[in-house]
């Protein structure tokens, strides 16, 4: 009988199969008692990364808090697809107020719970990248600065998808959106200075900051669990591909989320009190082209005459992340 090498993960994914883990380490999603916080029947697009991210995040937070959780949601895709009147997909107390105020609403909820002596009930604020890095940014920074007892989660799909795919402060350079079309001398989004909210959150020296992608849901769950062990302002920035907005195949959501990390374009790390404490190493480095080619928002870079200058600039950005965060080399622990 031929010898077969035992693999701890599913083929091509690096994700360890649940069955091979100790019961305590298994995903919240694999448990009978999972809370289905964002339950089925919502109206998200096929392959929606945000729905996946929100489900893993909130179910993990529900488990960590024994179901004593309140969510404050910004306006956006997540709010719209989950609460088409008279239906709601939320199986936890959930409030939507405005686009730009979710961090402040969450802070208000936390203050109320503190005043009432109900600090056993915890608060999660959540928004897309528009509601976090742009219109909600002042409220977010205020919440961080006050160190309010809120976990704020940004589901970053790199644009205003709910309004029809316009550019946000989180849209990457060169990407096509509805208002950065591939027309004119500089097609796609401009090369700006970027707005790295995880680093900005770290500059507030809040207890916990982490990034994650929906390609590694166990990693995301563990970060949520870690965040819920702590008090004060905490921030998790989750990379969530958007098939509709990016012009990507629905079945490539996980692949894109994996590639964005493996290219170095999206560093996955954890920080406590302003210091990076762990980095998820790149397992098998890939060039940014492999990631870009799967998305029609970058199609204008390819074709008969590829825009090699722009591709090189994007690669340089990934390389800088790899250098800056030390994304190559042996993993120090969980990766």
């Amino acid at each position, binding site marked *: 009988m031929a010898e077969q090498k035992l693999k701890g993960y599913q083929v091509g994914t690096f994700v360890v199969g649940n069955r091979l883990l100790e019961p305590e380490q298994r995903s919240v999603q694999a448990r009978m008692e999972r809370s289905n916080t964002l339950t089925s029947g919502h109206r998200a697009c096929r392959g929606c990364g945000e729905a996946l991210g929100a489900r893993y995040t909130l179910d993990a937070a529900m488990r960590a808090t024994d179901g004593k959780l309140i969510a404050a949601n910004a306006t956006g895709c997540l709010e719209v697809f989950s*609460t088409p009147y008279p239906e709601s997909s939320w199986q936890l107390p959930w409030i939507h107020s405005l686009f730009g*105020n979710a961090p*402040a609403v969450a802070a*208000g*909820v936390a203050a109320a719970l503190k005043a009432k002596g109900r600090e056993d009930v915890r608060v999660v604020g959540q928004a897309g990248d528009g509601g976090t890095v742009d219109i909600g940014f002042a409220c977010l920074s205020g919440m961080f600065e006050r160190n309010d007892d809120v976990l704020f989660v940004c589901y970053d799909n790199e644009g205003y998808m709910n309004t029809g795919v316009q550019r946000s402060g989180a849209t990457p350079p060169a990407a096509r959106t509805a208002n950065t079309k591939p027309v004119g001398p500089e097609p796609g989004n401009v090369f700006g200075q970027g707005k790295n909210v995880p680093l900005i959150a770290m500059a507030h020296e809040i207890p916990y900051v982490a990034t994650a992608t929906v390609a590694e849901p166990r990693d995301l769950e563990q970060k949520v669990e870690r965040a819920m062990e702590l008090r004060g302002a905490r921030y998790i920035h989750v990379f969530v591909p958007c098939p509709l907005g990016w012009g990507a195949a629905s079945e490539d959501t996980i692949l894109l989320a994996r590639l964005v990390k493996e290219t170095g374009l999206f560093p996955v790390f954890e920080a406590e009190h302003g210091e990076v404490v762990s980095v998820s190493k790149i397992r098998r480095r890939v060039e940014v082209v492999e990631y870009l080619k799967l998305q029609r928002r970058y199609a204008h870079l390819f074709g008969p005459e590829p825009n090699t200058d722009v591709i090189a600039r994007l690669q340089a950005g990934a390389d800088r992340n790899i250098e800056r965060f030390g994304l190559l080399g042996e993993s120090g622990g969980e990766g």
Partner: protein
Amino acid sequence: MLEQLEGSQAVAHSIAMCRPEVIAAYPISPQTHIVEALSDKVRTGELQPCEYLMVESEFAAMSACIGASAAGARAYTATASQGLLYMAEALYNASGLGLPIVMTLANRAIGAPINIWNDHSDSMSQRDSGWIQLYAETNQEALDLHIQAFRLAEELSVPVMVCMDGFILTHAYEQVDMPTPEQVDDYLPPFEPQQMLDPSAPLTIGAMVGPEAFTEVKYLMHAKQVAALDAIPAIADDFEQAFGRSSGGLIRSYRAEDAETIVVALGSVLGTIEDVVDELREQGVKIGAVAIKCFRPYPLEEVRDALAGAERIVVIEKAFAVGAGGIVGQNVRLALSGLESRVYDVVAGLGGRPITKKSLRALFADALGDRLESGRLHFLDLKRDVVERELERMQGGGRHGPHAENIIRDLGIVGAEPH
């Protein structure tokens, strides 16, 4: 107990006795003394349990109140002027969600040109935001109205704005009768939320509502405000029973029963108006005054009943609809539709310009002689020569410069000379 207090301190004491559980505020003149005093009370433990959130903007202040109120806490904030505009989006959200937040508005002008002094352009700009708007005439009434406001807000699950004239009331020292905490506790029951974020009974607040039900939700907002027209006098009556003095209500008439001329106004200017009414009464003039204490909901029937017997109505208001005319004036006309009375719209006191007895005497003399034009907006004490000069300058065309700076230079204000 009688005390000599600054208006802001009186209001802060009053708020503290109402036991808010969350206060979220951002400083803006002339609201600052109120929230500073409340911060002291929270920090010293005089007011507890209470969380005071020092937020980064008025938008965040109202947003935090929304979260706190939805989580079942009694929530309070205070602001003025630009701050009210900065929280405008959240104001509509609080009322749309039906959250019983109470806010003090220290009435102040809106820029440009930037101006920190009193008028009503801030509250009038948000008159249709779905908030109940109560206007205090005195510091005593400001103090009392806050106690009533929490009860009103929580009974109907609607937000209430208590408007008090910035500086004129907030910074004025007056004698006030301060109730005891026990009296307030007896009058104001603990907050029992009508909707609440509660893990033991999860619900969704703030869902998207399309054309199939939006009208009905908005109808209910209106219906609650209409219900407030009954609740406000009842709550004011209860207050009088409990505290032994009359405060609040929908409107208040002063020597208006047989009046041929009635002056209508909101807020602290009523005191000056009533002094002039007294003078004219001594001369045998049948003149009176009506204070609108509650502008939203608009007490149309009460205003009509109070004004129906008068030949002429002089509406003095501290704000106006640019390009349209008086705001209170339009509402008064609505109440008087079908009647023969003449309504004169007078805008006064903009940006803190004093409304003096002398000016009012002259104005009322013109009104009594029907030398004012009904349907046209009159500006009390307008410096017409200054306006004419600027209009002339504009006719010259070209880059004539900003009006405000030109006018200040014309007036020869110190330091306004070109360098």
